[in-house]
């Protein structure tokens, strides 16, 4: 009886917590189907007249389809940038794990210090350096800085020691394979889960990045989604119709992420575990 009651209490609390996290998302879903008057007139958790098609058309039509441009930018910044960043991190972490050299641990300490540097502290001087190099307000101004991910190197080192047994590498070497060949054809395939994990981490970090694009970019065509939606919302005070644009755009920009994370649970959980349980 007692156990039954605690079971009920435990699950009730969890349902309450899930309501807290999921209800705002469901509000977004409901609201993106409404016209502007309905947004104010109907309850937040009920459908009004179904207006999703018109909202989508408005999002697509606004500024000559600028929303899709933002989408493409975000995919490039986060997708391509995340992949390059993950490869760079995995290579470096692998070297830290499998080789010995003078001053290695000191260098690794430097990497760990890099984890602690607030990204916002580097954004402003980066802007000034980029403006000297003539890179401000270009694709590269946002793309290059996000390739560095000290935490990824740390994760890669931890995961490499778990996934790649030293004996396999020795075997490859005695078969005459060079170091680089050994890495790409033997170690990297074994490190695939590590790569995906770090990629996911980096992908979310770049997709969520706001400060750097805000500082670097003034050309709307280069905006990532987050900055684009922010700029739409800023116009909503003068032009309320931007409210429906912002809401529908926000929904469109998070749905793919929610789906991807739903499918790749194994990988992000692995990364979070390796990162915290030492």
């Amino acid at each position, binding site marked *: 009886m007692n156990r039954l009651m*605690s*079971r009920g209490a*435990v*699950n009730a*609390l*969890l349902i309450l*917590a*899930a309501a*807290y*996290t999921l209800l*705002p*998302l469901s*509000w977004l879903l409901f609201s993106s189907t409404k016209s502007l008057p309905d*947004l104010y007139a109907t309850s*937040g*958790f009920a459908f009004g007249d179904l207006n999703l098609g018109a909202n989508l058309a408005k999002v697509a039509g606004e500024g000559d389809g600028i929303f899709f441009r933002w989408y493409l930018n975000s995919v490039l910044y986060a997708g391509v940038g995340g992949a390059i960043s993950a490869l*760079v*991190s995995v*290579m470096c972490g692998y*070297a830290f794990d499998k*080789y010995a050299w*003078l001053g*290695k641990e*000191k*260098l690794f300490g430097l990497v760990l*210090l890099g984890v*602690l*540097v*607030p*990204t*916002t*502290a*580097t954004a*402003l*001087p*980066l802007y*000034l350096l980029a403006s000297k190099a003539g890179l401000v307000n270009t694709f590269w101004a946002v793309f*290059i800085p996000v*390739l*560095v991910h000290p935490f990824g190197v740390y994760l890669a080192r931890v995961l490499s020691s778990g996934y790649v047994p030293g004996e396999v590498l020795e075997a490859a070497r005695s078969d005459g394979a060079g170091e680089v060949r050994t890495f790409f054809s033997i170690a990297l395939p074994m490190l695939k889960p590590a790569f995906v994990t770090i990629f996911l981490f980096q992908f*979310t970090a770049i*997709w*969520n990045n*706001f*400060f750097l694009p805000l500082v670097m970019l003034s050309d709307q065509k280069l905006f990532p*989604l987050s*900055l684009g*939606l*922010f700029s739409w*919302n800023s116009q909503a005070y003068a032009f309320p119709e931007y*409210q429906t644009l912002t809401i529908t755009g926000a929904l469109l*920009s*998070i749905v793919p*992420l929610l789906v991807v*994370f739903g499918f790749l*649970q194994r990988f992000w959980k692995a990364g979070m*575990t390796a*990162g*915290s*349980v030492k």
Partner: protein
Amino acid sequence: MATTVEAPPPPTRAKPRPSPRRTENWRRRGAITLFTAPFFVLFAGVIVAPLGYALYLSLFSEKSSGLGFGGKETVFVGLSNYLDTLADRAFTDGFLVVAGYCLIYIPLMIGGALALALLLDSGLARLSKFFQLALFMPHVVPGVIAGLIWLYLYTPGISPIIDLLGDVDFLGASNVLGSVVNIALWEWIGYNMIIYFAALQAIPREVIEAATIDGAGALRTAISVKLPLIRAAVITTVLFTIIGSLQLFTEPMVLDNPSDGVVSTWTPNMYAYTEAFAKNDYGQAAASSLILAGLAAALSFFVTRWGNRTR
């Protein structure tokens, strides 16, 4: 970086062919350089150089030349940018805001995430996978969008919460701090919960069984057996939560316009942004970012040390 590019040994008594052993060493060195160079070149360009440049900038100031001709010149001002920043009420008020934010946010976040992880780990929870995903979902939502969603949920006329609770002014000066805390809590509670849950799952089951045999109830086991065993995970998350809180920027930026309570220098980061892009005072902006970075480093150091000592 320097260590990967070691000076080649002097070629004493050149042999017609290097020994196989030596070629192998060279090959390894080449491989190490090749594997680590991309990261460290980027690291130097994107983290070390900007920090160094910020340090340099923070020691200079732009002054109009005496007669007003010839525009502005850059003069070395020593530490005066730092002193000006520290003496600026707008900056110190920003720290008070962040301190208040931490006081509310960190206990709620850590306590809430721990409680949820312990509930999931209690063996009484159903649908554990579903709850993990449901609680983690908001973390996948970018900060700006999380801010926007909650902004609407705080807006009278649209918000179902205000419909339900009556006339609550979420964006008013006295409530806005709590409203920002709530956004951050929503974004991060599931993330930290997953970390704790993973750490709890790693505890050997025999330990828990031993406690149960000794007569400890579920609550007692959770508090005096499980919690001490995941302290490393807790300390790490506290550390990252503090660093993140100091950088508070995105969520208040989203609330900046609609809320009377949020001013353009509301947090230290917003202050630095305003100094740089509204006032074009790069020296002071650099000084304030560096003070912030230094504080983050110092706090991390103390949290880690405190964590190690009380182990």
